[in-house]
C-alpha cells in the first residue's frame, strides 16, 4: 500500500514542477547500410530508420500516458555518417542529410543526430567530405544535427580540424543568414564526445553500440529548483551541505523516473535499454531554467562571482543522486548552460552579468560547454577556432566532455538580439575579445599532444 504522502508529493512534482522525461532517443546503427552506390545507401538509410523508429513516437506517448509522465522529445541518433558514407563527396553527403531529414519527418521526430565525424587524431577522406558538407547539410535541412569530435584526452587536440570547423561554422552561418545563422545551432564541436548522448545536437550512436538502443534524458532543471525553493521555505537556515543533499534526493527521483520510462519504451519496442543521461537540460520557459537555480541558491544571477562554485555543487549533487538511482548512467550527465535555450541565462547575458569568459570558466565544472552562444557575425573563422580550441583544452586536460555550439549571427553585432525560435530560443549577442584579430596560433595547425596523466595540477 502506498502512503498518502508518497502519492501527493509525486503528483506535486508532476503538476507544479514539470517532472517529465526530456528525451527518449533511439540509437540506430547504420553501419551495415553502407554501399558504394549512393542511391542504395540512401535507400538503406531511409528504410532502416523508418522501420526501426516506426513506433517510437506512438510508444513514447502511450507509456507517458500510462505513467502520467510526459516524454517531451523523441529523437533519433544514428551511426557517424562520415563512416557509413566515407566513399562520397560533400555534395553527395548533403543529399544523405536530406534523406535523414525526410526519414525523421516521416516518423515524427524533430531532430536526428549523427551527421558526425570523429577526427581527434586525423581527418580521413570521408571525414573531410562530411565536414565540408556540414554548412549546406544544416542550412538546407531543419531536423539534422551534426557533431564533430576534434579532441580527446587520449589523442590531444587536432588543431587542423579545429581551424576547419571555425571556417565551416562561418559558412553555415552565412548560408542561413536569413534565420540568424540557425544552421550553427545544430552543430556541436566536441572534445571527448560520449557514444551514447541522448541530447541534441550532440547525439550520435557510437561504433561500440548495439544495432538499436534506447537512451533517455531525464527531467529538466525545474524540479531541482522547486525542491531547493521548498526546502528553503521550510527552513531558511539550510547550509550548502544540506542543499546538496536535497539536490541529490531530487536527482535520485528524477533518474528513477527516466530509467523506468526508458526501460518500458525499450521493452515495448523490443530494443535494448542503454543509459540514463542525468543532464539538467533547460528550455526557454519560465520555471524550466538552470539559471534560476543560481538565484534560488542566493546568487544575483548566473555569471556573478560564486557561479562556478554553485554550479560545481549542483552538478556534483546531481551526479551523486543519479548514480545511486541507476547503474546505467551515461551520456553527458551534467548541467547544461545553453545561453539562448535557457530564458534566465539569456536574460543574465542581456543584463551584462554573463560574459563569454565566465561561461568558459564555468564549463570546467559542468557539461557541456559554450552552448548556444550567439556571437557577432563578423567574428573571424580564426577567432571562432580559437574559442573552440580553448574549450577543447578544458575538456582534454580535465578528462571530461566539452563542446561548443557557437553561432556567429550574420550582420549582427554585440548587444543585438538573435532569434532562433522554439526550443532553440533567443539570446543577446555576446562580445568576443579580439573578434576580428589575426590569430597565427590557430593557423599553425598540427596536433596539440595528449596530456600527461600524472602531475595532476
Amino acid at each position, binding site marked *: 500500500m*502506498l502512503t498518502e504522502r*508518497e502519492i*501527493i508529493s*509525486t503528483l506535486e512534482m508532476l503538476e507544479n514542477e514539470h517532472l517529465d522525461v526530456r528525451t527518449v532517443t533511439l540509437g540506430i546503427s547504420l553501419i551495415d547500410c553502407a554501399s558504394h552506390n549512393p542511391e542504395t545507401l540512401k535507400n538503406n538509410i531511409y528504410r532502416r530508420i523508418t522501420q526501426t523508429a516506426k513506433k517510437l513516437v506512438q510508444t513514447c506517448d502511450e507509456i507517458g500516458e500510462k*505513467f502520467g509522465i510526459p516524454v517531451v522529445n523523441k529523437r533519433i541518433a544514428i551511426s557517424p555518417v562520415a563512416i557509413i558514407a566515407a566513399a562520397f563527396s560533400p555534395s553527395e553527403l548533403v543529399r544523405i542529410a536530406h534523406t535523414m531529414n525526410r526519414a525523421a519527418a516521416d516518423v515524427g521526430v524533430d531532430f536526428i543526430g549523427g551527421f558526425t565525424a570523429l577526427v581527434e587524431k586525423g581527418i580521413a577522406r570521408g571525414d573531410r567530405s562530411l565536414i565540408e558538407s556540414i554548412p549546406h547539410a544544416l542550412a538546407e535541412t531543419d531536423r539534422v544535427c551534426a557533431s564533430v569530435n576534434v579532441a580527446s584526452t587520449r589523442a590531444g587536440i587536432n588543431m587542423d580540424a579545429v581551424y576547419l570547423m571555425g571556417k565551416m561554422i562561418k559558412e553555415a552561418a552565412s548560408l542561413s543568414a536569413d534565420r540568424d545563422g540557425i544552421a550553427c545551432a545544430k552543430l556541436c564541436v566536441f572534445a571527448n564526445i560520449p557514444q551514447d548522448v541522448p541530447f541534441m545536437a550532440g547525439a550520435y550512436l557510437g561504433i561500440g553500440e548495439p544495432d538499436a538502443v534506447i537512451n533517455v534524458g531525464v527531467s529538466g532543471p525545474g524540479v531541482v529548483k522547486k525542491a531547493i525553493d521548498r526546502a528553503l521555505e521550510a527552513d531558511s537556515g539550510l547550509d550548502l551541505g544540506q542543499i546538496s543533499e536535497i539536490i541529490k534526493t531530487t536527482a535520485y527521483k528524477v533518474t528513477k*523516473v527516466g530509467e523506468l520510462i526508458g526501460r518500458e519504451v525499450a521493452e515495448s519496442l523490443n530494443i535494448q535499454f542503454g543509459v540514463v543521461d542525468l543532464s539538467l537540460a533547460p528550455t526557454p520557459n519560465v520555471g524550466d531554467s538552470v539559471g534560476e537555480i543560481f538565484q534560488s541558491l542566493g546568487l544575483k544571477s548566473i555569471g556573478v562571482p560564486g557561479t562556478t562554485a554553485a554550479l560545481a555543487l549542483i552538478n556534483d549533487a546531481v551526479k551523486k543522486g543519479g548514480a545511486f538511482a541507476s547503474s546505467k548512467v551515461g551520456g553527458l550527465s551534467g548541467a547544461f548552460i545553453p545561453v539562448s535555450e535557457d530564458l534566465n541565462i539569456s536574460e543574465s547575458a542581456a543584463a551584462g552579468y554573463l560574459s563569454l569568459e565566465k561561461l568558459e570558466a564555468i564549463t570546467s565544472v559542468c557539461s557541456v560547454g559554450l552552448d548556444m552562444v550567439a556571437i557577432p557575425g563578423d567574428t573571424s573563422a580564426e577567432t571562432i577556432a580559437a574559442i573552440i580550441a580553448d574549450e577543447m583544452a578544458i575538456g582534454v586536460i580535465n578528462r571530461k566532455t566539452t563542446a561548443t555550439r557557437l553561432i556567429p549571427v550574420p550582420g549582427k553585432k554585440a548587444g543585438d538580439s538573435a532569434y532562433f525560435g522554439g526550443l532553440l530560443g533567443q539570446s543577446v549577442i555576446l562580445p568576443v575579445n579580439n573578434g576580428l584579430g589575426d590569430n597565427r596560433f590557430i593557423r599553425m595547425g598540427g596536433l596539440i599532444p595528449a596530456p600527461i596523466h600524472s602531475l595532476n595540477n
Partner: protein
Amino acid sequence: MKKVIISVLGHDRPGILAATTQVLFEQECNLENVSQTILQSEFAGVFIASMPESLTVEELNNQLEKVLGSLNLYVFVKPIRVDVPTYDAPGSEPFVITTKGPDRKGLVAGVSSVIARYGANVTNLSAVFKGGDDPNQNIMIYEVDIPWRIDQNSFQKDLREKAAELGLNISIQHRKIFETINRI
C-alpha cells in the same frame, strides 16, 4: 477450522485493541489478520481469527460484547464461509487514481461507479474531505486493479468525463511510478 471476521467500531481511546485481543486470546482464538484505522475521532478495526470447534460464534459475540460494550464500542462477528469461492481477480495492472476538487455529495459514489462498471477492483481507498472549495483539502486516492481485458481508452475517457462532471481534477497513473520515485 472455523473462521470469523470481527469488526469493532467506536469512539477512539487507549486500550481498544488490548481489550479485543484479550477476549480472543482467552477464547483460544488465533488471530490471522488485523487492520485498524482511525477516521477523525472514530476507531475502526477488522480482525480475522480462527476459532476452536467447541466455541460458537454467538458465544464469542457475547464475550466480546460484554467487554467492549462496557467501553461503548460496537462489535459485530460474522462467520467466514470457506465453501464460497473467493473473488478471482482477472489479469490486471495496478493503477492509482487521484482526484482533487471542491467538496460535494456523491464524489466517491460517482467515481467508484465508473470503476465498478468496468470491473476494476478498488484495493485501497483513502479519501479526505475537509469541505470547502480548496481542491487540496478534498482528495481521493484509489488504488485500483484495472483488468487487461477491458478497453483502457474508454475506461480512462469515462473516468475523465465523470471527473469533469463532478468538478474534479483527476490523474490516472500506473502504480509503479509512485514506487519508483519514493522507494529505494
